[in-house]
């Protein structure tokens, strides 16, 4: 079963590992027919399309859980939502086979909505878009290197209403390469406090058109 869920507000501050435990316990409370891993320390067989950084909110996370019995997507949603805390909520679910690795492979981009209270970022955004190369320090587990992040920004716009800037951005997100919104924002406006919400995952159709990842996953089933 795959399910799309949101992780909003206060829920944005616990880690990916914590999310794993939280979802597992929710499924146990809901009495869902889930399958456990074998061995010494059994865990619900549960995977996520990708991790979400601590501090980011999201409306479009995707989980994949292995079932040990039959349950309809509707029933799954009703039961899990009854036991999830405020801020975590599954919006839709679908029965598919072995979804998570397949979903990961399909993913091409992620979309974000950003709010920067008290800061006008429109000039910075305009300036950024005018450039062909923007180098930034990208950290991975083992090393830090300078990369050109400009090509990884597939869409970016900004509106300032006198109180806050509202940005939307579509950033590269594949297995091999991904641009975190925090890094882009740090480059655009260092030190400015931003609320970041992930709003969508995309895949590409054969003709190159964007399609929602969840839909793409359902199509594969």
């Amino acid at each position, binding site marked *: 079963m795959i399910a799309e869920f949101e992780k909003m*507000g*206060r*829920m944005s*501050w*616990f*880690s990916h590992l*914590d*999310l794993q*435990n*939280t979802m*597992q*316990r*929710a*499924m*146990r*409370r809901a009495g869902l027919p889930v399958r*456990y891993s074998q061995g*010494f*320390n*059994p865990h619900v067989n549960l995977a996520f399309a990708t991790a979400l950084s*601590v*501090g980011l909110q999201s409306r479009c996370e995707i989980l994949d859980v292995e079932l040990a019995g039959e349950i309809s997507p509707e029933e799954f949603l009703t039961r899990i939502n009854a*036991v*999830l*805390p*405020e*801020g975590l909520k599954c919006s839709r679910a679908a029965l598919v086979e072995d979804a998570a690795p397949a979903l990961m492979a399909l993913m091409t981009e992620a979309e974000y909505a950003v709010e920067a209270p008290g800061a006008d970022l429109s000039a910075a955004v305009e300036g950024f878009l005018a450039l062909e190369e923007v180098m930034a320090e990208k950290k991975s587990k083992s090393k830090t290197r300078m990369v050109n992040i400009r090509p990884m920004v597939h869409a970016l716009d900004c509106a300032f209403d006198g109180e806050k800037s509202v940005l939307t951005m579509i950033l590269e997100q594949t297995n091999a390469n991904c641009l975190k919104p925090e890094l882009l924002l740090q480059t655009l406006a260092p030190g400015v*406090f931003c*609320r970041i919400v992930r709003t969508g995952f995309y895949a590409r159709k054969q003709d190159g058109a964007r399609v929602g990842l969840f839909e793409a996953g359902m199509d594969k089933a």
Partner: protein
Amino acid sequence: MLYDRIEPLLAGVSKPARYTGGEVNMVKKELDGIDVRFAFCFPDTYEVGMSHLGMKILYHILNKRENFYCERVFAPWADMEAAMRQNGVPLFSLETFSPVADFDIVGFTLQYEMSYTNVLNMLDLAGIPMTGSERDAANAPFVVCGGPCAFNPEPLADFVDLFMVGDGEEQILELCEHYDAWKKRGGTREEFLLEMANIEGNYVPRFYESAYDENGEFAGVRRLRDDVPARIRKRCIPDLDSADYPDRIIVPFTEIVHDRVMLEVARGCTRGCRFCQAGMLYRPQRERSLDKLLELARKLLGSTGYEEMSLSSLSTGDYSHLPELARKLVQEHGCNKVAISLPSLRIDSVLGETLEQTQQIRKTGLTFAPEAGTQRLRDVINKGVTEQQLRESVHDAFEKGWSAVKLYTMIGLPTETDEDLDGIRGLAQAVLDEYFSVPKEVRQKGLRVSVSASSFVPKPFTPFQWEPQNTIEELERKQKLLREKLHLRSVTFSWHEPHLSFLEAAFARGDRRLCGVLLAAWKRGCRFDGWTEEFKFDAWMAAFADCGLTCEQFAHKRYDLDAPLPWDHIDAGVTKEFLQREWKKALAAQTSPDCRIKCHGCGMKQFIKGVCKSCE
């Protein structure tokens, strides 16, 4: 809303989920209908505080009342504290992100002495004045304290309006009820506190004063008015089954120290170890019934989804129905992948059957607490276990597949000699021998024996309350000696920081003069003293000097058997005569067997009728 000002700080601090609440089973209420707002403050981090059983119980009890709202508050870690101070964000509650100063009552639970600077720091972060008179003037929340350290309240007396001594279940409700009535009726704060002072278990330090003789020795705590009790009797719930116990508990998102369902099977202990304060404070021993526990386990596992459960009490192995309880829990919940662990096993507990039950699910490490190395010293401290029993228990465990054993010991005990330290090596060696005596095909690979040595701290209401602590130099010498002796294959050795135990000893047995030291230490930047990386020993020593006192004069003091003690005005139920008798027996290395076998007349039988079943 305060959250909007907290949110920007979170990205810059470690473990932000400590500060955001919103967990499963957190209680939500509309503030409109609330008569009494209670801030339950734990003077340590979220992970430590959330593991504490007493908080879960009292949170549940208060929130069951529709018009009371109990919220949780923890001490922010240094990075968060700095961010809060810099941005003018006051200490806040996790349920509604309210400033702590907005509450009616601010309650701290005192689990260990080394959290006292955090109490002061939290008051300061909350913008609540530190002394009662300043709070009266500012009409700030009342500050109350409970927990085991409330049995010697003097070192915090200047900062607290009310101490609640003993089992808190009934007391905390009475406090809120009286507060509610007082607030509606109107009256002075002093009137309210006077009313509280006359309820059993309550100590209002402003109505008492501390006296000292011409040599600067403590000379007793005296009443300042005769309409308050001369002695404060601790509260005691006679029947645990009738006491409220939560059927749902908060499930943190982020890992905490004890991340599981805790089932309190009993309170109190009948063993009478002479160094153990909890064993004396929580007398008499009371058990929950098997049926009640099974029902609670069912509800708690269902409402939390936890995959682990532990049975908790001072001596879980002594619970009368332990084998049956363990068997039924495994039968009922094993198929749902629930691991049931028995953490505080004692050497002579009924291990056999229970071991077999638990291993179906998960083999957690086995812990044993022989405490001392030789039979002589174990007799002195009344730890009624023998090396033979230890051998049999670990042998049994190794046969059943365990391979990790922890041995808890203590150094600096009264009458200890280096021979006793040799004995600790002897015990570790005995465990190794037993392991290798189990055939290779049967035993599990990867033997690990960890020996830990804490430093003895004399505590009030124990037979050793009159005893001095070893000096730091002596403790360090003993640690070094043990470290050398325990150079054995598969054995690791760990020990406690003796400087910390030194301070703990001063605050455990100190009098009201330590309030000044505490304040000075806080001003010098001390907090989170129980955390090695934050502990500032030099600042503490300077704080003592600021007040013209020394830590030695408290930690290393030998009190006369009949001298007034700073906690004499607290009645914990066990009598001084009993403690004196036990002290004399200790020096003669005479044991006092488990009081289920023979009553030693500790005073509890008179204190609360009909609870000590075995001695009636």
